Structures are given as C-alpha cells and as structure tokens.
C-alpha cells in the first residue's frame, strides 16, 4: 500500500490561513491502514485546526468527509454538495487523491495534509517500511524476492557495494543492506550461482524516467 504521513499541523494551517470554512476529506484506502488519513485522523486534524484558529481569535469552520477511495473519481463525486460553500479542501489522501479532488473542483483551493512517502508495508504495528520503487519491470525473481531497486540505497543490480558491513548499509546502521539479505537468501536457496550472472543495465524508461505512465486494459474498458 501507499504509506503517507501527516505534515506538521502548522504547515497545514498556513496553507489555509485565509479561509473561514474548509472541508477535510479523509480516505478509507491505504492512508486509513497506515493511520495517516482515515476517519479518525480526519476528525482529529479538523479539531486541532479549529482549536488553533480559535486561540488566534480567527475561528475556522470545518466539515469532514471520508471517501471510500480518493484515487477513484467516482467516489469523489459523492461529496459535491459539501464542497459548494467551503473556501478550501484539505485532502488527507495520498497525492493521487489530492489531484483527483483538484481536478474535479477546479474553482477550489485544494491542499495536501499528508506527505506521500512510499510503497511498503507494516512489519510491526506502528512501523512501515519501503518495499517497492515502482520501477515498472520487476526483477524480484532474480534477487531472491528482495528489491534491490529501492532497498539498496544505490539501486545496485550487481551488489553488494563495498560499503556493506555487518549486514547494514553504508548510509546508516539502522538500514539493512539489501544485498546482504539477497546474498543470505540466495545462499539458503542454494542459488548463489545466480548472483554470478552480470545483471544488465536497467531499462529505466519503464520507470518514471520514461515520462508519466499509464496502464491500459482494453478488455475492461467501457464504451
């Protein structure tokens, strides 16, 4: 899923400093799971902003709503009537949600409450880790199921580099060296010979370097 984290509240408050009434829109998708922009976080943020403004003698009116998914325009349309009389919309979704809202309500000031961080998962409660760099051409079958693109700090395809020590990456003792993990797993699988193959340069055109991407499935397109 997409992992996001809330921006500092004072940054959010600044974005809507000249507004009297705002709509806060949470999302029941990924950001609910990663505890950044679900129903609870939306209510808490609304209350916090109201208190902040009351203390500044500049009260703020808030309306809240939680979309099933903000990354699907169909679920945004359901809040049309809430949008009408607000000065701004604060989206607590990932960057995708913010953009779909901005696209639908072109005359509205739409701001992000979250920083969209990465694609990952949660290993233990409260800790999320990055697992995929969205490279568009998955190589996990060649690296024992461990992603070298995003989990190696240098995206090395023929690792590990000379900075790998005691299982950790050269950038921090808190970061596992992906190539140590790959080595360990390939060894356990009896496939170390695979690591002797020189992996060719990656085709980054399938990644963001090729420009904005689209995925099309004509068989499911309607009309």
């Amino acid at each position: 899923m997409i992992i996001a984290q809330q921006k500092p509240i004072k940054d959010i408050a600044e974005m809507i400093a000249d507004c009297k009434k705002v709509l806060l829109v949470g999302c029941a998708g990924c950001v609910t799971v990663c505890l950044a922009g679900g129903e609870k976080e939306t209510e808490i943020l609304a209350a916090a902003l109201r208190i902040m403004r009351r203390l500044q003698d500049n009260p703020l009116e808030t309306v809240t709503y939680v979309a099933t998914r903000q990354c699907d325009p169909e679920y945004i349309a359901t809040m049309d009537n809430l949008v009408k009389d607000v000065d701004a919309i604060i989206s607590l979704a990932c960057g995708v949600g913010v953009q779909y809202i901005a696209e639908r309500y072109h005359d509205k000031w739409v701001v992000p409450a979250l920083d969209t961080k990465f694609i990952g998962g949660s290993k233990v409660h409260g800790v999320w880790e990055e697992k995929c760099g969205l490279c568009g051409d998955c190589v996990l079958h060649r690296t024992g199921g461990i992603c070298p693109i995003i989990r190696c700090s240098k995206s090395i395809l023929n690792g590990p580099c000379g900075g790998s020590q005691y299982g950790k990456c050269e950038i921090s003792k808190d970061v596992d060296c992906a190539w140590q993990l790959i080595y360990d797993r390939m060894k356990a699988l009896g496939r170390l010979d695979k690591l002797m193959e020189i992996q060719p340069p990656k085709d980054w055109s399938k990644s963001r370097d090729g420009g904005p991407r689209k995925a099309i499935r004509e068989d499911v397109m309607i009309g």
Partner: protein
Amino acid sequence: MKTESKLQKLLDSGHFAVTAEIGPPKHASAHGIRHHAHMLKNYVDATNITDCQTAIVRLSSIAAAVHIRDCGLEPIVQMTCRDRNRIAIQSDLLGAYSLGIRNLLCLSGDHQKFGNEPSAKNVYDIDSIQLIYLMRRMRDEKLFFSGEPIKEHEPRFFIGAVANPFADPFEFRVARLEKKVEAGAEFIQTQCIFDMERFERFMEMVRERGIHERVHILAGVTPLKSWRAAKYLQTSVSGMIVPDDIVERLKKAEDPKREGIEICIEQIKHIRNIPGVHGVHIMAIAWEEVVPEIVERSGLYPRPKVE
C-alpha cells in the same frame, strides 16, 4: 587488448606497480594538485584522481587529471555511478580520452548522505559492474552503451575497478571481484588494508579461483597520522576494518606520524610477498607529501621506465 596506458605496460611486463591518489581541491585552482603531481611523479607509476570522494563537491576529476598529466604524471580517472547517468558518463569519458587520459577506475561512489550535498538526488543509472562491462565493450567492440556502433576513435581505456576485502559478506567478496573481472576489469585496487590477516585470506581465495592470473591486483594502503584517525576509520567508515593493535601502536608512539609511516612501510613490505599481488596503491589522504619517503623506504624506488 593493449591500450596506451603506461600503467598497463608496466603491469603486463610483470613489474610491481605503485599508484597513489590525489584528491582534487574544493576550489577552482589547480595549483595544489600540480604541486603534488610534481612531487609524486618520479615515485609512482600513476595516480588516481578521485571523483568527488565521500560526495564532497570538488574540482572535476577529469579536469584535475589533465593538469596532472601536463605535469608528467599518468592519471587514473575515477568515475562513480552516483552523479552521472549513462549519457553523461559516456560523454565525459569520450572527452577524457580526447584529453589524453588512458586509465579509468569504475566505482559505485559513496552515497551522498555524508557529503556536503545530502539533499542531492543521486543517479545510479548503472552500477559499477555494468560500467566496467560497457566501457570494455566500448573499447573492444566499438559500441556505445546503447549498442550503436562507434564509427571511429573509440576510447581505449585501461579499465580498473575496486575491491573491498573488508566489506561483507566476506565469502562473496572474492566472487564479486571475479564478477568484475568477468565484466572486463583489468586492474583492481583494494580498499586500505589494515587487517592483514583478512587480506591474506582474501588473496588465498583469489588464488584458489585463479583470479590473480586474469587481473592485476594492487593492494591499498594508507599511512595514518594519529590514533584518532585510526579510530575514526575503525568506527565511522562502513566497510573498513582497523585492528585495535594499530590504534594502540599509534597511541603509544612518541611521534605518531612517524609511526604511521613505519606501519605503512611494514605493510607494503609484507604485501610484496603475498602471491598474486601485483602492486600497491598508496592512499595518503591529505598527506601526499609522505608518499616519496614511503616508496623509497619500501624498496620500490626508482620506478621502472617503460617506453
């Protein structure tokens, strides 16, 4: 496949080579590196020019290499994968060759996190092994990285790489060295050796696989100025092993700098007797002036002449 590299001629004719390292300055004058080049030129066969080492912005390695070549010392240009994509790498290396550079050292490069531009975007379009392979193919098959033919004047570098016997996983270090040789590396410089026992084990594995017969290995050494410098390398640089007795020896020394030089000379003498080692690479970081003495007292002076 021969190149015009003097270093290659020397190594191929069986001489024990000596290389050093010059770090370009954090300003736009070549005065200092030219001074170092004149100082080193009769004592070493070639010198590396680092490429924004530890991700600190410095004068360009290729530009510095031209200054050094003008002083009569053969440069080895370092090229990292951190700052340039495949377009910039090829372009810069075509340019470097046109300026008379004949030796190339391919490496991943230190992550920018500890440099002076930690908020920079890194590139890592290709990795060091891919760089070796592509540069070798460029020379021997006259192909750009894309596979497009180079009609004429392909760059003919003597291609080197690095190996770190002190990084992990240790068992894979020799395998990865072999991978670099498979990719086309013709000479290897190692990370600075302080743990001699581990280096000897590494070389044993190198010999078992016969890698020393396919590539020239230059063992890296670094003279240490103080026990603090030793301690810093021991605790703060990933991929480095400094045994406690070296730290202790420097701590006890009356003149730590002298002691550092002595240790380095002992190491070189020892390394010369390790089968499969074809040279020594002296990295006197910000202490270039001690290199002549180290070379001389290690019995490596005068340097052989090649045509």
